[in-house]
């Protein structure tokens, strides 16, 4: 007697059902995006009717100064958010992993992670209220790119900390001890050994916080000032006035750029992994 129950449905049915389920899932995720891309080539200004193929929306985009300046602002804010998040996140993660006991550790850990679960609307609103009153007392900071960056940093820092902390926890502590044993002072251990070993985590934290900042609407909406409108805010405000194929065109451009970046990165990582696996196997055989 074998312990296996007879299947309720035949194997062929299971296979087909599984495939159908998978297809439905993919459709749910990607059909809207495909539709968006297709409609960016729509000649009709109405988003719901197909009026033939055109590239005019992409042409218009070239001269859309509002969108272009929004794009550059977003890029700038995202760049500085990512850099600052990684640096501060590294310090926070390092503290949390290396110092198991200090007064206020639990509070520190909670505070660092809080922005992950705190609704963005609340974070944005409270930051706005704080900045308004600070500005009233000090005359600084004017709401604009700077305040958007501060808000994004708050969020990005939390994400960067989580990513870097996970990597630091995996590190073999003996490697850092070995560095110290060989004469490296604590700061040399950090810069010569720890940092290079968590390089990949730093890179992924940077990319994560960069994208997070690039497409943030809620915090930016609260913290932007006159003349500092990020690209997502431009898109958002246009969409509110009525859908417009030029928004589709912007979105398509972003999707293409992101796809190229992701595919290239995965290819490079996979190639490095394969190379490494081959070298390790060769070393084992040679011994």
């Amino acid at each position: 007697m074998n312990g296996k129950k007879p299947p309720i449905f035949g194997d062929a049915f299971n296979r087909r059902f599984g495939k159908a389920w998978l297809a439905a899932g993919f459709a749910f995720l990607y059909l809207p995006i495909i539709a968006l891309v297709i409609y960016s080539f729509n000649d009709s200004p109405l988003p719901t009717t197909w009026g033939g193929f055109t590239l005019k929306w992409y042409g218009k985009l070239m001269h859309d100064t509002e969108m272009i300046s929004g794009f550059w602002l977003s890029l700038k804010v995202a760049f500085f958010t990512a850099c600052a998040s990684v640096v501060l996140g590294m310090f926070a993660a390092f503290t949390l992993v290396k110092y198991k006991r200090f007064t206020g550790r639990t509070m520190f850990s909670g505070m660092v992670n809080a922005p992950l679960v705190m609704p963005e609307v609340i974070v944005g609103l409270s930051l706005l209220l704080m900045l308004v009153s600070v500005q009233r007392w000090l005359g600084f900071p004017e709401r604009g790119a700077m305040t958007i960056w501060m808000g994004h940093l708050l969020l990005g820092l939390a994400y960067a900390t989580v990513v870097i902390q996970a990597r630091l926890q995996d590190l073999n502590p003996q490697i850092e001890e070995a560095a110290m044993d060989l004469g490296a002072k604590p700061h040399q251990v950090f810069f010569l050994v720890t940092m290079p070993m968590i390089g990949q985590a730093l890179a992924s934290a940077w990319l994560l916080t960069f994208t997070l900042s690039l497409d943030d609407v809620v915090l930016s909406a609260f913290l932007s000032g006159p003349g500092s409108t990020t690209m997502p805010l431009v898109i958002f405000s246009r969409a509110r006035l009525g859908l417009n194929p030029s928004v589709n065109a912007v979105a398509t451009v972003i999707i293409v750029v992101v796809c190229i970046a992701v595919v290239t990165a995965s290819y490079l990582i996979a190639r490095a992994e394969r190379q490494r696996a081959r070298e390790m196997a060769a070393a084992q055989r040679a011994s």
Partner: protein
Amino acid sequence: MVASQAPAFLQIKDVVKDFSGVKAVNHVSIDIAKGEIFALLGSSGCGKTTLLRMLAGFSSPTSGKIILNGQDLEGLPPYLRPINMMFQSYALFPHLSVEENIAFGLKRDGMPKDQIAERVEKMLKLVQLGKYAKRKPHQLSGGQQQRVALARSLAKRPQLLLLDEPLGALDKKLREETQIELVNIIEQVGVTVVMVTHDQEEAMTMASRIAIMSEGNILQIGAPSEIYETPANRFVADFIGNVNLMDGTLIDDNPDHVIVECADCKHYVGHGITGTEGMAVSVAVRPEKIHVTREKPDGEYNHVRGTIKDMVYFGSHTVYHIQLGSGLVFKISESNVSRHRDDPLTWGDEVWASWTPLSQVVLTQ
């Protein structure tokens, strides 16, 4: 004039390490001579690693002193100690090549570039890894990684080399080869070594002296043969190698011999001990010192009678387990000196096991 004995090269003086009430290392004192390979042997949690970490400077003793070559190491951080360590996991820097790994410590000392290159080359030659200089650690086999770790820890010419389970990460076959090679390299360099291991074979073959540790205490310090042949107490006798331990009473105490009565036999031990008649003692006999015969040996001492319960043939020797009248199972290891035994023994046979008066050790604690 009598010259006073020079203090030992490494002195561990009454060192205690207290982890919130638990004494991981309990009043340990050891003197280690220059050029010695000293092993701390014990099962996990016995405090040997804690002691090693205190030598390296990763933790500091709760009380006591560690003096190396006349210098008190107290308060000296790991990066200022003239001590290097080979870690159990090797802890090679994964992002640096073999030669960069070896050069790491030299660079920290600010050694000129040409001298570093020279020293690295010498180290690579020492561990026979010259052609692997440009490789990264993951491109090396376990044995090669171990040699890089050794070269890296010797590159700075430390006064003291610490080995943490040096062969623990290697498989058995590789371990035996590496063991000898490691000792050769260490002797070539002439560095003083303190190693930590839970593997008694590793300690026996590599070390010139061994300290047996248990629960933070040192139970015995001595050369491998001393520890094996004259264990100080039951724990050590049982921990190192196989042993038959029999509890009994000291019934006759003489300066040149003693007699101990046990449940299965009377022991005639050919040396005096410090004890009093009527005292409870244990007698330890190693399996390889026992001889199996069908006939009853002469005399009334040093033999037991039993039935063969188990028999395992190892080629060079055969191990017998003999069930004694008291229920004790006696382990015997007989060398197979000739190719055939005229009268082969088999399971269930009634036999006598005997030994000479100088092969037992009487343990009073």
